[in-house]
């Protein structure tokens, strides 16, 4: 009889263990679901009810955010955190599919930009069309013949155009873009140089 009771006790204990395991499995399944949505809140089993509530709230918040920004971004399925990635960046073609530029043309433009005086001329023209006399006044360090020569180079590269009737020099759309781009490159490089200097370990 006692053996039968012992067996019953054992079965009851096994049932409870099985239920506990089932519950644990259910919790794990819930956690995996939340992980897929990018949110994972790890809590003690004793707070399972609270956990479910929080997860439910977070799910609602996530859906709300997704709804608000549906087309511009998406939630990245990264465990442990909500990661926002811009869709346009994600949709970009991989580098190998990017159209290859005519490097000769690129080199010609870069060559035209690769002179401090020519960059100064572009800088002056950024504020509007100028006669050669205006440029001479603004850039006295450049001789007249050198100035004309630089303007020829800039015109050849399509960065500057000269009006034939009035004689003014105007910066073109590519000229304006090239000038801005060169400034951006310098700023970016300087920013990285500063960051590198900050992170570099100090010498003993």
């Amino acid at each position: 009889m006692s053996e039968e009771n012992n067996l019953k006790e054992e079965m009851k204990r096994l049932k409870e263990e099985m239920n506990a395991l089932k519950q644990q499995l259910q919790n794990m399944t819930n956690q995996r679901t939340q992980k897929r949505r990018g949110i994972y809140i790890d809590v003690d089993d004793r707070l399972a009810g609270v956990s479910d509530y929080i997860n439910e709230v977070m799910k609602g918040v996530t859906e709300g955010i997704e709804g608000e920004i549906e087309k511009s971004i998406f939630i990245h399925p990264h465990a442990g955190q909500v990661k926002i990635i811009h869709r346009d960046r994600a949709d970009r073609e991989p580098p190998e599919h990017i159209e290859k530029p005519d490097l000769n043309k690129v080199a010609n433009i870069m060559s035209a930009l690769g002179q401090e005086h020519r960059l100064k001329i572009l800088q002056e023209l950024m504020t509007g069309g100028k006669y050669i006399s205006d440029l001479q006044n603004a850039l006295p360090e450049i001789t007249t013949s050198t100035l004309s020569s630089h303007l020829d180079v800039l015109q050849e590269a399509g960065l500057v155009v000269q009006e034939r009737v009035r004689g003014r020099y105007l910066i073109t759309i590519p000229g304006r873009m090239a000038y801005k781009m060169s400034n951006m490159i310098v700023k970016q490089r300087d920013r990285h140089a500063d960051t590198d200097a900050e992170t570099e370990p100090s010498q003993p």
Partner: protein
Amino acid sequence: MLLQHMQLGTQTQKLTKDTTLLQNEKCIIKTAAGTLTLPILVEDNPSGHLFIGKGEFTLDAIIETTRGAIGKPTTRDLNRPFLMFGEDTTLNQNLALATTQDLANYGYKSTEEFLKKAHETLDQFAHRRHGQFDINEDTHIFAFATEYNKWDILIAKRDKMVYASKEKVYITKNNDHSVSLESGSILVSRKGKTIVIDKGNILVDRDAP
């Protein structure tokens, strides 16, 4: 002025000095000394000139936008006949009767040969062109014969100008309003606001300077 009523005068003249027929901020038309000319008459009234000789036409078909300048200057030698409608006092002061030598300078052996060429030119321009235009003191219309047996047309009235050729159409008014159509691209600019349609791309720039 009805195109059908146009006829040429009979007195062959030449330019005694280099003469600027039109000049504004965007365009300049010059003719060289020695260029031969005949008056164009409408109902016996002088209404313009036909030119055969040398000259140069320059048009700055450039539009300034807040993102930079678009377009380029157009320059062409006027070594083919061209017409000018509208009177010009400076021109009239620089005219003298052409001599046999003046005609010979451009390969014409006689006045008759030159007149024949001049009439052919005017007929070619008036051919299939029906209509009329009114020209007042401020307006000048130029028609330049091209190698394609077509005519490039320039109409200028003070600060307004329209140029139409095989390659380009350019319209400008007081530098504030411009339209340019050229090899698949259309550009419309008004007081610094610009729309560019180029090979399927549309750029709208609303930033006024």
